């Protein structure tokens, strides 16, 4: 299938030039040298061809052959994706380990999907049915809880002339034949799709359902909608990865695609070792069963890092097309941008800001725009929510990647180094962060939880911003100079910060907060504020409020009340009222 089309003339790191055929196409996948390293054509100029190579090019020399594949860089889609871990160009890492040991050697060619495993296939459509691209032919129960819907490839339509009976098949076996305008097509359970092309859908829909993450600061204060986009910028050590991991673990998505893009090897190992043992709180199955991992760690070839983002989002789109909700995490988009910069530098392109190529913003936009809540070709609804970590140099958000990202996302979770230093995690700064989905998802909360989430949220945000204003004064004159009513704002805000916003990802009870727990907790804290305010107006001082035993109970309830024993929160409310009643009686 691959044919030699030219010879190498120049090598510089991951970028090589070759001279040869004028028939190769832009973005065609190629194989380079005798070892047949995987590459992609990124430039054509007469008979000079520029190629980025996804593997180490040590030893590559002028004169070596270059082979074309005739196809653009693509991924394989089909049963077997879940629970997989791939490198940036979808090579299965466990199989590479089996073949070449602990270290990744070059020129390894492997099928991304297992060709031997038999999947139990149940057809839905029958002979004679008219089919269009995206329609669901049949299903495979890929894991206990996941129905893999086998679809007609988007570019195929016609009449089904033959349908395979319900039986076990490998992904290479023909499961249907379609008579199309251009002849008969045989369909298998596997599809190939070019990573740089969006998979089509019928229509984009609005985003009004929140992606529940179980992280209180996100769900209550800065919600992300399903199909939305969010960025997590933060200096090193601010907790980007822990936050990303927490979302990957607890988000109420059907599928999670986690792209470790230019990050630490041990972090991917942690996910690999932890996820099979973590249980999804919604269906009791291991979290790994809904997860696809793409790992292109920082020491793996830089060009493949560039590709990893596209590999991940194409897989996400495939699951979306089945009518599922997918959450995609990219950690970190800055490393991806740096890969662009490195390749661009080797091509001697004119740099824009800080050495980044001028097309950085366009590439970021292309990526984030692949998120969305859509009606799929088969009439179902599916979504991709994209959460991109950003690693700004020196934690300075004014750098190009953060700034351009901000233009294309609607939810900004700013991590704060000083909060992280005080071990306030997740270190999401409540003054700098924002979500443009707040109003959009308020209706959902009203319907599902029956409480005025938006009002509570706004009250909490007001308290916190009032606190920030007051602490400026405190820094100058000390807290004693403030009237007790304002000191109460400080006290309630402290309770909210320590008891609500802080969440311990390592604690069994606290790691995931059910939405009912979240709203009940916030309700209690605001109730505390309301009652205390009344008492202070009657002349009590802040010291007596601070000394109430309930204060510590409010701060600790996050770790002491499990999600399935929420009735205990009612007891706390009773205790709170009792203590307040007692105090109020003294100041009547």
């Amino acid at each position, binding site marked *: 299938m691959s044919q030699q089309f030219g010879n190498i003339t120049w090598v510089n790191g991951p970028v090589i030039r070759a001279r040869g055929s004028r028939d190769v196409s832009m973005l065609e996948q190629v194989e380079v040298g005798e070892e047949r390293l995987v590459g992609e054509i990124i430039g054509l100029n007469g008979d000079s061809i520029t190629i980025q190579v996804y593997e180490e090019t040590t030893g590559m020399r002028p004169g070596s052959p270059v082979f074309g594949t005739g196809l653009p860089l693509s991924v394989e889609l089909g049963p077997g994706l879940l629970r997989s871990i791939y490198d940036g160009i979808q090579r299965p890492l466990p199989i590479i380990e089996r073949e070449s040991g602990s*270290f990744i050697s070059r020129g390894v060619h492997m099928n991304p999907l297992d060709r031997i495993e038999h999947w139990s296939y149940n057809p839905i459509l029958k002979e004679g049915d008219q089919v269009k691209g995206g329609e669901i032919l049949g299903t495979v129960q890929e894991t206990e809880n996941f129905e893999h819907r086998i679809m007609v490839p988007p570019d195929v339509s016609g009449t089904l002339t033959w349908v395979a009976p319900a039986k076990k098949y490998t992904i290479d076996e023909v499961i249907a034949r379609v008579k199309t305008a251009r002849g008969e097509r045989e369909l298998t359970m596997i599809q190939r799709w070019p990573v740089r092309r969006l998979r089509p859908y019928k229509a984009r829909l609005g985003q009004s359902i929140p992606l529940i993450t179980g992280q209180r600061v996100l769900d209550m204060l800065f919600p992300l909608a399903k199909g939305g986009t969010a960025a997590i910028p933060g200096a090193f050590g601010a907790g980007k990865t822990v936050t990303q991991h927490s979302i990957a673990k607890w988000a109420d998505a059907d599928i999670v695609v986690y792209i470790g893009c230019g990050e630490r090897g041990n972090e991917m190992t942690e996910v690999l070792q932890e996820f099979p043992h973590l249980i999804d709180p919604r269906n009791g199955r291991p979290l790994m069963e809904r997860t696809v991992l793409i790992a292109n760690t920082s020491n793996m070839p830089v060009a493949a890092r560039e590709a990893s983002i596209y590999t991940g989002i194409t897989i996400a789109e495939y699951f979306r097309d089945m009518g599922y909700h997918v959450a995609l995490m990219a950690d970190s988009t800055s490393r991806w941008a740096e890969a662009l910069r490195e390749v661009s530098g080797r091509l001697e392109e004119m740099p824009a800001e800080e050495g980044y190529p001028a097309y950085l913003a366009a590439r970021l936009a292309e990526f984030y725009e692949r998120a969305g809540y859509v009606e799929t070709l088969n009439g179902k609804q599916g979504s991709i929510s994209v959460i991109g970590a950003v690693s700004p140099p020196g934690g300075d958000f004014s750098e190009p990647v953060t700034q351009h990202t901000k233009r294309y996302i609607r939810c900004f979770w700013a991590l704060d180094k000083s909060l992280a230093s005080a*071990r306030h995690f997740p270190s999401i700064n409540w003054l700098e962060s924002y979500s443009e989905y707040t109003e959009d998802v308020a209706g959902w909360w009203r319907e599902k939880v029956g409480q005025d989430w938006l009002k509570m949220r706004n009250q909490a945000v007001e308290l916190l911003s009032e606190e920030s204003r007051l602490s400026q004064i405190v820094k100058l004159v000390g807290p004693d100079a403030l009237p007790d009513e304002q000191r109460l704002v400080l006290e309630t805000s402290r309770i909210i910060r320590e008891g609500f916003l802080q969440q311990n990802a390592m604690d069994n009870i606290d790691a995931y907060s059910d939405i009912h727990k979240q709203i009940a907790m916030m309700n209690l804290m605001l109730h505390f504020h309301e009652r205390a305010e009344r008492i202070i107006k009657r002349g009590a001082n802040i010291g007596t409020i601070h000394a109430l035993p309930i204060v510590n109970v409010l701060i600790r309830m996050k770790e002491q009340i499990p999600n399935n024993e929420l009735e205990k929160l009612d007891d706390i409310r009773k205790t709170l009222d009792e203590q307040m009643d007692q105090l109020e009686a003294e100041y009547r």
Partner: protein
Amino acid sequence: MSQQTNQLTDWGIQEVSGVGRVEGPIVVVERAGNVGYDEVVEVIDSQGRMRRGRVLEVGEKMAVVEVFSGTSGLTIDGTHIRFLGQSLHIPVAEEMLGRIFDGTGNPIDGGPQPLAGTFSDINGQPINPTARVYPRDYIQTGISAIDGMNTLVMGQKLPLFSGAGLPHDQLAAQIVRQATLGSPAGESSKQAQQFAIVFAAMGVKHDVAEYFRNAFAESGALTRVAMFLNLADDPPVERLVTPRAALTLAEYLAFDRQMHVLVVLTDMTNYCEALRQISNVRGEVPSRKGYPGYLYSDLASLYERTGRVKTSEGSITQIPILTMPSDDITHPVPDLTGYITEGQIVLGRNLNHQNIYPPISVLPSLSRLMKDGIGAGHTRGDHSHLSAQLYAAYAHMQDVRSLASVIGEEELGAVDQQFLKFGRAFEREFVGQSATENRTIEQTLDLGWKLLSMLPKEELTRVSPDEIKRYYKESHDTN
């Protein structure tokens, strides 16, 4: 098994006379056919002296070569270039422990070339994330600010961020001297296996190299140490090879010979400057502060050569040292390092001025792997909450301290005054210790509780009521 590195891909030797251009450490060779990218070359000047280099870029009939030991004395026509047909390999063997090498792996201690059956590519190969074992065994360093607050785990890369004039060398030497495989509090420390040490110096002063050699000798560790020295007056380009040579040996020891290896790399800032110099000469587009855009990837190719793999009992733990230019943690070198390494230990000038040794600023310091290496079965069940509480209390104390500097200490509330006292004691007693003091994990944790007991119980919201009951010292006199 590690890399199949002894199967050298031999592309054949070829020789070219005369070069086209010499600029800084770079030589451009014309009329060179069939040269491989990243190939090693020997550069022979008109006097017949040989130096080594490596190919950075190849085109048809053209090769760009960086010369490790500089280009002084090279002439256009009188220079011979011999392309060796393979990438840079060094011999690796267990008997290299106890020896001293130059920056490219040649012995400089007067001893013979080590006998080695294995030659390994200094660039190594990336470890497959699925082949890694997630590090969970902590290393007891005997230093409270590390063991208690930023626990080091076997297989971790934990750099020291320092500044000129701070005692980072002393601290690194103390860590190397005292490091033992940790065991739960109450049990005696496992002395089973001592660490092998691979030490790489890049552009450091003679005194510093000498200091480390003496420190190793005094602790009787010298036979377990392999030193790779590129000193301040050695050619800068050679610095790019030094850490790679050292890590190649470390990988062999850890993954082929099943040893636990501690790697100390100092000073990474010098390494990065050498990289910048080469990049500059080649006219590459710079990113921040003139450093090349690929600095992150380049540093990652060093730091990521750390960890544990399923096929070996051994491990590599890295302690890179870097000095932050003008103590600026946002400088590209510490910044990119922090993004790759699993935390950082930051030394602070303020503490140093107060004569507190080791002057570890705990707030900006972090160990990312700590969470899985501590707790019951590793250190002690209360460790995680205790350290979170110490962090929170110390961070609050900083706010109080800055308030006190405005309104005066007397104006502070009673509780805040207690916090101030706690902070001072924390810095002097917990962070501060002598350069020879080796505290057990139990001592460190108990000390933490002793200090927390200076604060009212109600302020301790990060530790559980049970832990307070068990460890909080009621009777402690706060005066």
